[in-house]
């Protein structure tokens, strides 16, 4: 049924091209690591610390991923499907922790929860230490669970409510329906979101250094930044690529099992609203309490910087230019990444061949690499291969695509898997060419996934730092570079406004997509009456 014959060359060729571009960072690492003598390479690989780092890094990734699933799936379902009070506000704000750079978030946790911090000095109670593996796991979960939330939310919007309605009409309660009918259908999206979380943890630098957990990425940074020696860093980077492949194989086992079996056959009707009854308030309060930690606490710390700075008579720059540039490159990057992701998502959702799968997996290789490694690779290749693009906005957008393409692919592919292949077959029977099937059937039906993917990319670009610092046009400031340059040198008051604007800019696409969803939901409720 699903063979390569169903995907036109016009999709396969661009997919292969995009995948090839994604291999640039890995190729760079191989070239640089090859300059090491075999003896030195072996010495680095066999260092006792290396194995320990691998173990701890994988444990951290697994912990954060599981915690993110446990938190994100219920929040996604409650904010999408129930009559919980404050649903719209919680729906918007639950995705926002993603725009908080981990170094700012982790710093906020330390200055609020650390010994002698805000909480201890106000309440007199000393919370558990934010440092170490546990603290890093908590911080990374708080600031990366939205990867799962947004992909699952996109999938929920694409589910055919007919199955749930059938389950309910056969006498199953809402809980049984959720567990036995909805959750199994969410499996591909949970897997896609989890993959983004676990690979993000592999690449994170900000939270683990702030909270003192030595991971693999931190070791790579030390090599680069202290010894100015690229070769050992490149070898460690390649080892990280191997870890990534391990995670990718695992995800393929979990996420691919029965995908496609519960597909729908056309545009979705919005699902009905589940009444929570006496659970309304407890559920709202639980989600609210969680968001107090993930979003409100960092915001309070930032506002505290602002208040303290005003009291000390500091001057403030509103940073509106930086906000406009951030908005522009994030929106541009999101659009370009979504377009680049389309061919790969289409091909891998409609073709089970080895080449299609390999192409899709290739796109994830660079994603787990620390941003700075990818940025150096693009510096090296960019200035030689495309000197006219070097340090232009165009180059920056290319960097964003290489860095964040998997976020767009995951969401798009999930939404395409929700469309039954019988739909393609029906269109073909009615005389549509393979190309027409893609353009007139699949693309319109993957809109939910495209929006979810573009939103993820947007939110991640808003806080991106290493590639922006090295590859943006000289003098091109964004909110993230502003926040970084101020916090790095302890000018917290000057970091406050850009940090608040970061959250504001991040909430824009979420607000737009929420308004659209609410309108659909509203019309569904009207139709139901």
């Amino acid at each position, binding site marked *: 049924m699903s063979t390569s014959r169903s995907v036109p060359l016009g999709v396969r060729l661009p997919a292969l091209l995009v995948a090839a571009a994604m291999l640039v960072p890995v190729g760079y690492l191989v070239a640089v690591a090859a300059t090491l003598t075999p003896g030195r390479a072996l010495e680095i690989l066999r260092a006792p610390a290396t194995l320990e780092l691998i173990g701890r890094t994988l444990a951290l990734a697994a912990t954060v991923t599981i915690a993110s699933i446990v938190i994100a799936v219920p929040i996604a379902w409650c904010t999408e499907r129930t009559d919980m009070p404050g649903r719209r506000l919680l729906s918007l704000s639950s995705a926002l922790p993603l725009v908080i750079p981990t170094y700012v978030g982790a710093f906020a946790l*330390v200055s609020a929860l650390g010994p002698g911090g805000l909480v201890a000095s106000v309440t007199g109670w000393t919370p558990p230490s934010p440092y170490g593996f546990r603290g890093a796991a908590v911080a990374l979960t708080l600031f990366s669970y939205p990867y799962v939330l947004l992909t699952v939310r996109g999938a929920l919007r694409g589910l055919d409510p007919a199955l749930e309605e059938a389950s309910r009409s056969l006498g199953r309660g809402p809980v049984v329906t959720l567990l036995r009918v909805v959750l199994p259908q969410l499996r591909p999206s949970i897997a896609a979101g989890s993959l983004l979380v676990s690979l993000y943890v592999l690449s994170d630098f900000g939270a683990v250094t702030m909270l003192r957990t030595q991971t693999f990425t931190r070791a790579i940074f030390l090599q680069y930044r202290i010894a100015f020696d690229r070769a050992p860093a490149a070898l460690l980077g390649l080892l990280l690529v191997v870890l990534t492949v391990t995670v990718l194989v695992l995800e393929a086992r979990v996420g691919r099992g029965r995908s496609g079996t519960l597909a729908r056959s056309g545009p979705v009707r919005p699902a009905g609203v589940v009444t929570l009854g006496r659970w309304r308030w407890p559920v709202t309060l639980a989600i609210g309490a969680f968001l107090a930690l993930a979003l409100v606490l960092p915001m309070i710390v930032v506002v505290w910087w602002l208040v303290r700075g005003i009291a000390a008579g500091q001057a403030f720059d509103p940073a509106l230019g930086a906000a406009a540039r951030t908005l522009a490159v994030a929106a541009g990057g999101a659009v370009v990444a979504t377009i680049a992701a389309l061919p790969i998502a289409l091909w891998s959702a409609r073709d089970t061949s080895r080449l299609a799968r390999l192409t899709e997996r290739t796109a994830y290789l660079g994603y787990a690499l620390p941003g700075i490694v990818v940025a150096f690779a693009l*510096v090296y290749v960019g200035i030689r291969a495309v000197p006219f693009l070097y340090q232009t906005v165009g180059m920056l957008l290319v960097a964003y695509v290489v860095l964040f393409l998997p976020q767009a692919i995951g969401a798009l592919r999930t939404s395409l898997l929700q469309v039954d292949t019988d739909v393609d077959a029906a269109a073909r029977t009615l005389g549509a060419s393979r190309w027409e099937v893609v353009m007139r059937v699949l693309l319109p039906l993957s809109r939910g996934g495209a929006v979810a993917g573009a939103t993820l990319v947007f939110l991640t670009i808003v806080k991106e730092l290493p590639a922006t610092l090295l590859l943006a046009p000289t003098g091109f400031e964004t909110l993230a570079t502003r926040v970084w340059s101020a916090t790095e040198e302890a000018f917290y008051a000057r970091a406050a406004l850009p940090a608040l604007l970061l959250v504001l800019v991040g909430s824009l696409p979420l607000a737009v997509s929420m308004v659209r969803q609410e309108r659909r939901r509203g019309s569904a409720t009207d139709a139901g009456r």
Partner: protein
Amino acid sequence: MTRSRPMRTVMLVVVGLVLAACGGGGADAPAPDAPSPDASAAPGAAVPDAAGPLVVYSGRNENLVASVFADFTALTGIPVEVRYGDTAELAIQILEEGTRSPADVYFGQDAGALGALEAQGRFAALPDDVLALVDPRYRSRDGRWTGVTGRSRNLVINTDLVDAVALPASVFGLVEPAWSGLVGWAPTNGSFQAFVTAMRLIEGEAATRAWLEGMLANGVVPYRNNTAIVEAIGRGEIAVGLTNNYYLPRFVAEDASFPAENVYLPGDVGGIVNVAGVGVLATSSRPAAAIALVRHLLSVEVQTAFGSRVDAAEFPLREGVDSTLLPALDSLGAPDLDLSQLEDLQGTLTLLEDVRAFE
């Protein structure tokens, strides 16, 4: 189809913003009026500078040095474009860019990074009269980079928890049990690395290893950077921190009741003076303008400003200029040290990994 209207508006705004972003660099950056290099070199004369703005890669923070570059442009009419970033990352970027690097000047805050670029042959020689402005201890032996300001290593203490007189006169005293769990350092930080490298040079490999192991056994607390150390001292999480001298004044500027003070360690390796310095790239197409900028950084006005701004508070390195906020540089009795040798960082990194200082 009322539904698509907000989407269409959003798309229009997005496209407009992208175009606007592509059009101009930064709002504060001077407009690149003449991007094409001026190829007409007068025969017989020295090759004149290429047209276009002078490009500076600055590992020094924008909040500290932006006004210095603006003053340079106002004085000379030479436009400057500055790429701000991390000192080490920008040095590696120049190494990765190779001979095509668009940078004319590198301004970094660590002698190690300057030394790494010098060792790779990326810097041109500076004129003798420029070098003569700075004490030879604070510039490259080969004359390819010069220090602009000095930053001393020192201790920051929480004044509620520790009395300055109770402190040891040397960092070697901090391995005593009395300081168990009370001291913080930033093992991944460039200045700390330079300090350890200096200790290896001055005190020897064995003594350095013994000190590191003693500190670790004494429960020294690792932080992400100097800023995080000072923040933790303010909260009382630790009592003593090994940092640079200029972080504390910024905390005090935002919070006058910040309970901490700087303690200098005259003559001790814990009080060495590192530099923030500048070099002109060998590949620069605007060497005359680049050297003019170096002269500007070493001018009496700029040097005086560095020594008297509360948020900068560094030691001026031009001979004859002293800071109004800091003790005189010579009074610190900093140990003699060849800053050019601070580039043996792989040895320091290996040692720190070996004693598990990053755990």
